[in-house]
């Protein structure tokens, strides 16, 4: 036990001293700060007004109506230009030039077909902005609707009243209780959990692989195994790197918490007033049980993958060889990642439930589900049980491969060799 501790401490101290660790630890909070600041900046940029022209070739009031609607508290300012259909091409050309010079953002073409067929066209430099297009489409359909109803003789006031938009707030229920967090916040949390788990399990798993390969290629392994059992070495290595991971995550966690608490300060630093929630990111409430679940699955998942990465490293002669051989292991981790959108969309769907019961996917799938919806305790227990049993099996197999592999040099073993090592 004391020897395992010695290995853990070396692994931890040496890893924490590396440039890689210092850099990624510092850059973590910077990224998080950027996570807060950039959406706000984006929101701010959205708040700058778009300037567009309405190229009105319609014979009705449609163009003017759109202009009036856009005069409201919307981020798009429009000016109507009345044209005839034959003039259209020439005017459009001159407007194209203006858009090219960034004087204008774009222009909307409205004809008689707009009211009758519902056809319009917008040309501009901001067509990729989902928000801008939504505003225009909304205004356009409102104008068209009003025009059509007016044509049918419906009173303007009735039309205006009928158009009052509906606002729905989505609030999640957890454990039979209504929570304060909105649906969007749950989504954000699930997303963050997914990124965090995927990245940390992968990054620290690969670190274990690197550490094992280093010992093998530098041949220090021969001295080590003369005083340590391979299992002591493997356990110390995996726990040591895992401790580095937890250490780094707690640094990040504390700084994230601090940034969140002092977000107004941070925003001020970047010269931005605190946006009252709108336009900014919806900050999720992280409950204790979520934290425990994420931590438990991180540990189990990390141990599972670290053991596999260690086995891969033990069968390789060089860093490059290991990187090639790791592919099957990485694929196991990528599968739940590829299916993540499906899980997020339907956290209680058949796919999500299945994935959270497959041990190699569960470390990511289950915490993501947990963050998104409330998962029955029985399902969590089943998932944990399957994961734990698999972990024991994988560690057993990996330790046997490791034991033989670390002293082997030369040809990479085939499947038959591996089976012999495991049975030996």
């Amino acid at each position: 036990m004391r020897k395992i501790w010695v290995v853990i401490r070396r692994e931890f101290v040496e890893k924490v001293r590396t440039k890689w660790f210092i850099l990624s630890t510092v850059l973590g909070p910077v990224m998080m700060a950027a996570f807060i600041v950039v959406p706000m900046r984006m929101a701010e940029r959205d708040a700058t007004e778009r300037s567009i022209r309405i190229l009105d070739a319609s014979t009705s009031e449609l163009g003017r109506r759109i202009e009036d609607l856009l005069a409201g508290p919307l981020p798009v300012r429009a000016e109507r230009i009345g044209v005839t259909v034959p003039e259209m091409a020439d005017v459009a050309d001159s407007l194209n030039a203006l858009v090219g010079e960034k004087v204008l953002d774009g222009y909307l073409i409205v004809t008689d077909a707009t009211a009758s067929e519902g056809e319009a066209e917008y040309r501009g430099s901001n067509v990729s902005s989902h928000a801008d297009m939504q505003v225009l489409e909304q205004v356009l359909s409102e104008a068209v609707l009003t025009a059509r109803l007016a044509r049918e003789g419906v009173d303007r006031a009735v039309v205006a009243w009928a158009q009052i938009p509906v606002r729905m707030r989505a609030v999640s229920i957890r454990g039979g209780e209504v929570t304060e967090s909105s649906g969007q916040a749950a989504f954000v949390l699930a997303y963050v959990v997914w990124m965090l788990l995927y990245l940390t399990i992968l990054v620290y798993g690969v670190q274990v692989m690197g550490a094992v390969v280093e010992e093998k290629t530098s041949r220090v392994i021969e001295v080590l195994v003369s005083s340590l059992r391979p299992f002591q070495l493997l356990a110390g290595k995996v726990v040591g790197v895992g401790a580095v991971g937890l250490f780094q995550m707690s640094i990040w966690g504390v700084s994230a918490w601090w940034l969140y608490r002092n977000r107004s300060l941070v925003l001020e630093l970047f010269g931005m007033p605190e946006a009252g929630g709108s336009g900014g990111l919806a900050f999720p409430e992280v409950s204790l049980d979520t934290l425990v679940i994420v931590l438990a699955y991180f540990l189990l998942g990390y141990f599972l993958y670290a053991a596999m990465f260690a086995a891969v490293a033990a069968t390789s002669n060089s860093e490059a060889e290991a990187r090639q051989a790791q592919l099957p292991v990485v694929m196991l981790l990528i599968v739940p990642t590829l299916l993540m959108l499906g899980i997020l969309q339907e956290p209680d769907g058949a796919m999500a439930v299945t994935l959270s019961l497959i041990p190699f996917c569960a470390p990511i799938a289950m915490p993501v589900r947990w963050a998104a919806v409330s998962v029955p305790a029985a399902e969590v227990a089943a998932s944990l049980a399957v994961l734990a049993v698999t972990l024991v099996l994988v560690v057993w197999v990996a330790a046997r491969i490791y034991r033989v592999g670390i002293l082997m040099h030369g040809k990479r073993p085939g499947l038959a060799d591996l089976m012999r090592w495991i049975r030996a």
Partner: protein
Amino acid sequence: MVHDPIIELDRVTKQYSGHTAVRDLSLNVQRGAVYGLLGPNGAGKTTTLRMIMNIIVPDRGNIRLFGSGSAGRDLSHMIGYLPEERGLYRKMRVFDVLVFLAETKGVSRRVAKEQASEWIDKLGLGDWSRTAVNDLSKGMQQKVQFIATVLHQPELLILDEPFSGFDPVNTQRMKDVVVELAHRGATVLFSTHIMEQAEKLCDSVCIISRGQTVLDGRVAEIRREHGGRTVTLSVDGGSEALSRLLADRTVVARADQYPQYAELELVEGADPQRLLAAMVQEGVRVRRFEVGEASLHKIFVDLVGVDAATPRAEEAEQDA
């Protein structure tokens, strides 16, 4: 010598797929001995030492260390092992790597630090103790590895080709350290393919070839048994007469003859004095005529033949 075996191997056999690295090898190293395990590359030396260290397990036979059945790993606090393939953590600092390796052998952190400083100074690495291993020259890395082997004051040193990679000055320095440790009572088992090294350092040797013992015993006894019949000869200008004399198989069993120099082995019972007289009588101008003990190398070559004394490629590979 008191009968107190530190290492006992009893008919140990290790097979790798296709060939036998070590066959029915028996060894007995007594406390305080400096014991050489000799043989050409690929003879099975490294395999034998690895089995003693319990890094690999023999297929058959028994290994006992310090009279107990424990494996080398459990006794690592008493054993200093220098593997043939040297290696340290490249990015660690010299001091840290020494402390760590001592700790894996069960030395407390405090003692490990004291000893590390002491040895670093002793071998002239004082200026480098905070340097990463990677930034040291090959020779200095070798020294660090050597310190790691002896830092925990082991009672038994197992050194696999300990002096390879050192320049002559440092080789001498390391030999002095080994001799000093032996004087203080450490038992030393080391392997080498350079017989001259063993000749100077060892009091007992075991010569193996192709995994089997060829010769085993105290160096002095081996020499007495196999020596006394060799003659080293220098002459001024060779002659027909000399060649004729050396070809006389009733006197000279074997001759390794060059134009002005020859190493001879006389047949049992032949008198070197009479050979000298015959040469003088025939007018051979003798500059040097030395009756000596055979070198271990010569004994070895005589016993196994030149063929076996040269390594076989595929065995050397397996051995590494």
